[in-house]
C-alpha cells in the first residue's frame, strides 16, 4: 500500500536548508523509494452506469482534433473521436479505424480502412473522410498544432475503395505512430465542410466515430456526452449512458467535489492533494504509466549555462530527491533521462539497458559542484530563472534551483511572470530573452523516445536553448529515417547518452499518471493513453 509522504512544509524547508549551506552538505544522494505503486488496470466493472461525472481542471480550448494538444482537450476528445490506430495502455499501437497498416516502401504508408463504421450522424466512414481529415493538418489556413507530425508528408491519397496511402519525402518512423493520437483522428468529410471554421467549438461540435457522442457543450461549465449506440466495437461500447465533464479550474473546489462524491473521478490531480483524497476514503487513487519528465530547460546559450560543465555543476547542486518530496509530495521519481522508461517499452532488453544502464548520475554534491564553478571561472555570474504562479511544483522548483545556484557561487534571480507570459516562453524567442532556465513537464504523445530527441536537433522550434551537437543530430536523423524499429531504438539510446552528458535540459523527475475513481465506479486503466484512447467507455459500476 501507499506510504505516507513526508509533510510538505518539512520537506520544503529541508531542501532549502540543504541547498543553502554549501560547506556542510553531505555528498551523494541515496535513491528514495517511490511512495506509490503503479497499476496496469483497475478492477473490472460489474454493471452499467446511468451517469458518469468527471472533473477536468480546465475547459478544452477546442474539440477540433487539429487543435487538441493539451490534457483537457484530449481526455474529452479521446472518448468522442477515434484515430486510424489505437494506443494501448503501454503506448504500443494496434489497429483502430484502420484494420491494417503497411510500410510498402520506406516512404509509403498504406492504411486499410475499417468497413461498417458509423459516424454519430449515422453516415458510414469512407476513405474520402480519411483523406479529408488528414489533409487538414497540411492546410496552412487551419494552422494545425499537429503539423510537426505531418512535416514530412508529401501526399495523402485514396488508393482504393477502402485504402489510403500516405507518401513522405523521407522515411518517417514517427508518422505512423502519431496516427494513434489526435494527429490520426478521422472526422466526417461532410461535417468538416458544413461546420467550416466553427468545427470543434461549442457551437460547431464534432461528428466522429467514438463510443460517446457530444450532446451539449455549456461553455465554461460542462460538456455532456451520450453513449453512441451505433458504435462499431462491441468490446469497447460504453458502459455509462451519459458522461458529463465538469470544468473545475479551482483546485480546492475540485478536490472537495471528489471527496464528497459529487463528482465520480478525475485525471491529473495535484500531487499535494493526493494524501487528502486518500484519507477521505471516498474512493481510490491509481497510478500508472506516464511519458512525462519534469526538467529545467536551459534557454540562454550566451549565459553561464551555455557551458556544459556549469550545467552539470548546477544539476549536482540540486537535491533532486528532496525536490521529489517538496514539489511532488513524493509522487515522483528522480531521473537522469529526458524520457521515461515507458516510451522504450517496445525496445528489446539490451537496448533498454543501453539507454538507461550507463547514464551519468550527477549525485547531489554541492562541494564538488562549487569546485567546478570555480574551475570554470563563472563564480559570481548571474542566472535568471523564470517561473509562474502555476502550482506548488513551479514555486518549489524555482526556489530550490535558485538556492542550488547560490550554493555553488552563482547569482540567481527568480523572475515570476503570468501564466500566459510563461506559455509564451514555449513559442516566442523574444519572450525567452533574459531567461536562463525555466521549468517544464514535457510529455510524449507516442511510445517512441525519438519524439523527444527530435525537438533537440539543431534549429528545431522547441530547441529553446539553441543547443547544437552535430553527432546528436546525425544519430537522431538516422533513427527517425529508419523504418526498422530496432534501429530507431538503438539510435535513440545513443541520443539519450549524448543528452545525458551534455544536459541541454536538466532532468529532475518523472511523475506517474494519476487517476481518482470514487467507490461507485471502476474500470479505467491508469495510463497516459487516456489522452488518445476512449478510457471512459470501460468505466462502469463496481
Amino acid at each position: 500500500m501507499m506510504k505516507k509522504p513526508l509533510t510538505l512544509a518539512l520537506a520544503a524547508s529541508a531542501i532549502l536548508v540543504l541547498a543553502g549551506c554549501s560547506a556542510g552538505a553531505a555528498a551523494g544522494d541515496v535513491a528514495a523509494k517511490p511512495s506509490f505503486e503503479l497499476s496496469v488496470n483497475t478492477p473490472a466493472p460489474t454493471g452499467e452506469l446511468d451517469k458518469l461525472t468527471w472533473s477536468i481542471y480546465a475547459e478544452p480550448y477546442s474539440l477540433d482534433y487539429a487543435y487538441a494538444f493539451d490534457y483537457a482537450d484530449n481526455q474529452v476528445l479521446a472518448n468522442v473521436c477515434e484515430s486510424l490506430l489505437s494506443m494501448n495502455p503501454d503506448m504500443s499501437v494496434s489497429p483502430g479505424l484502420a484494420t491494417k497498416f503497411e510500410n510498402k516502401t520506406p516512404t509509403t504508408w498504406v492504411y486499410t480502412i475499417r468497413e461498417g463504421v458509423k459516424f454519430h450522424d449515422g453516415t458510414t466512414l469512407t476513405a474520402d473522410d480519411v483523406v479529408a481529415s488528414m489533409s487538414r493538418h497540411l492546410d496552412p489556413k487551419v494552422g494545425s498544432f499537429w503539423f510537426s507530425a505531418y512535416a514530412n508528408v508529401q501526399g495523402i491519397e485514396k488508393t482504393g475503395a477502402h485504402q489510403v496511402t500516405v507518401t513522405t519525402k523521407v522515411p518517417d518512423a514517427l508518422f505512423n505512430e502519431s496516427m494513434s493520437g489526435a494527429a490520426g483522428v478521422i472526422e466526417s468529410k461532410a461535417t468538416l465542410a458544413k461546420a467550416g471554421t466553427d468545427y470543434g467549438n461549442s457551437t460547431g461540435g464534432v461528428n466522429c466515430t467514438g463510443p460517446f457522442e457530444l450532446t451539449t457543450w455549456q461553455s465554461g461549465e460542462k460538456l455532456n456526452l451520450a453513449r453512441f449506440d451505433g458504435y462499431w466495437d462491441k468490446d469497447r461500447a460504453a458502459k455509462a449512458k451519459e458522461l458529463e465533464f465538469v470544468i473545475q479550474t479551482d483546485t480546492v473546489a475540485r478536490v472537495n467535489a471528489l471527496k464528497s462524491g459529487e463528482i465520480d473521478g478525475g485525471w491529473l490531480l495535484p500531487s499535494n492533494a493526493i494524501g487528502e483524497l486518500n484519507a477521505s476514503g471516498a474512493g481510490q487513487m491509481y497510478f500508472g504509466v506516464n511519458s512525462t519528465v519534469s526538467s529545467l530547460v536551459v534557454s540562454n546559450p550566451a549565459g553561464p549555462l551555455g557551458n556544459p560543465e556549469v550545467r552539470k555543476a548546477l544539476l549536482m547542486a540540486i537535491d533532486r530527491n528532496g525536490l521529489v518530496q517538496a514539489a511532488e509530495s513524493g509522487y515522483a521519481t528522480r531521473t537522469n533521462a529526458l524520457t521515461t522508461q515507458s516510451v522504450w517499452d517496445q525496445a528489446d532488453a539490451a537496448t533498454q539497458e543501453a539507454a538507461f544502464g550507463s547514464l551519468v548520475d550527477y549525485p547531489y554534491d554541492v562541494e564538488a559542484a562549487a569546485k567546478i564553478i570555480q574551475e570554470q571561472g563563472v563564480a559570481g555570474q548571474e542566472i535568471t530563472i523564470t517561473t509562474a504562479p502555476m502550482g506548488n511544483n513551479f514555486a518549489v522548483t524555482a526556489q530550490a534551483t535558485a538556492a542550488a545556484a547560490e550554493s555553488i557561487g552563482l547569482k540567481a534571480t527568480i523572475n515570476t511572470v503570468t501564466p500566459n507570459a510563461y506559455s509564451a516562453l514555449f513559442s516566442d524567442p523574444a519572450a525567452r530573452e533574459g531567461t536562463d532556465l525555466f521549468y517544464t513537464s514535457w510529455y510524449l504523445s507516442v511510445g517512441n523516445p525519438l519524439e523527444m530527441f527530435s525537438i533537440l536537433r539543431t534549429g528545431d522550434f522547441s530547441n529553446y536553448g539553441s543547443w547544437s551537437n552535430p553527432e546528436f543530430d546525425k544519430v537522431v536523423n538516422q533513427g527517425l529515417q529508419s523504418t526498422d524499429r530496432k534501429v530507431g531504438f538503438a539510435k535513440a539510446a545513443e541520443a539519450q547518452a549524448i543528452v545525458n552528458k551534455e544536459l541541454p535540459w536538466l532532468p529532475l523527475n518523472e511523475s506517474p499518471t494519476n487517476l481518482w475513481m470514487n467507490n461507485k465506479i471502476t474500470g479505467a486503466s491508469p495510463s497516459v493513453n487516456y489522452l488518445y484512447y476512449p478510457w471512459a467507455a470501460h468505466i462502469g459500476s463496481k
Partner: protein
Amino acid sequence: MAQSNLATATATAPTPGATSPQRSAIPALKLAASKIGSFLFTVFVSSVIVFFSRWLVPGDPINFLLRGRSPNPEAIAEVTAIYGLDKPPLEQYWNWVTGIILHGDFGRSLQYRQDVSDVILGRLPVTLGLVVMAGLMIAILGLAAGMCAALVRGSWMDRAIVASMSGLAAIPSFVGAIVLIAIFAVQLRMFPSFGSGNGFGDMIYHLVLPSLALALSFIAVVGRVTRSSMVEQFAREHVEVARSRGITPAAVVVRHVLRNATGPILTVSGLLVAGLLVSSAIVEQAFGLAGMGSLLVSSVDRLDFPVVQAIVLIVVTAFVAINTLVDLLGPVIDPRLKAGEGAR
C-alpha cells in the same frame, strides 16, 4: 468600493441642468439631446481606449493561437490574415467598429476559435440571472431596511439597522461568497455550492447564494442612501405642513417623503450597476459559474483580446446607458429638475 460609490453618488446627485425659467418642452429636449450626445461620445472614446490598449500589452496574439506548438511557417501568415492581425491598427479598429455596428460582429475569440458574440451569448443567461436576482434583492431588502430605519429614526432599532448596514457594506463579495458557501452549502446543505444547474427553475435555485453574495454590500449602500434621504425629507417644511393638515402618516410617507427621496436613490442605483457587473466576476469565480465575469477573467489570462474588448465595451456601454437613463428619468420623477428650480 461600496463606500466610494456612495460618495460619488452624493457628489453627482442630479443638479438642475437647464436654466430657462419657462416650463416648455424645448429645454427638456435639449437636455435629452445633450445627454445622448455625451453618451455616444463616452462610448466612442472608451471604444478607442479599449481597442488600442491591446498594443500596450506585451505578447503577440499569434503566439497564443499557436500555444507553443511547432508551426507550419505558412500557417502563421495565414492565421494572422484570418484574424485580420496583419492590417494596420487603424484599419483593424475601423473593421472592428463597423463589424459591431453593422453586423453585431465582435470578431473571433482566440481561445475558443468561435465568434465572440456566440461566446458571450452562451455566458449571458447566467450573468443576467445573477444581476437581475441581485438587483431585486438590493431593491427589496435595501429599500425595506432604509425605510424601516427612517420610520423609526433615532430609536435603538434605527441604530441597529445602520450599524449592521455599515458592517455589511464593508464585506467584500469574495468574503461574503466564502461565508455563504460555508454556512448554507457545506453546513446546512440548503443550496448547491457550484454550477448553474439545468433549466430555468434549477438555475434560479443555483443562483440564490451567488446573487446574495453579490447583493450584500449593495443592499447596505441602498439602505443607507434611502434612510438618509428620507430622514432629510421628514425634516422638511412641506412634510410638517402635510402632517399638520391631518394627512394620514402612510400617505405622508408615500406621497411626500418617499417620492422626494427617490432622486438620490435612483442615482445611486444607476451607479451600482457598474459595481454589480464588476463584482459578478469575483462571485462567478467563487461559485464556479460560467458567466461573463469569469469569462473576462479567463480571457485576460489567455490574452484573448477580442473577448476582453467586447466585454469591456458592453459593460461600459451598459453603465453609461443606465446612467444616461437615470439622468433623463430624473426630471420625470422630480419636476423641480425639469423646471430648473435652483433652490429646494
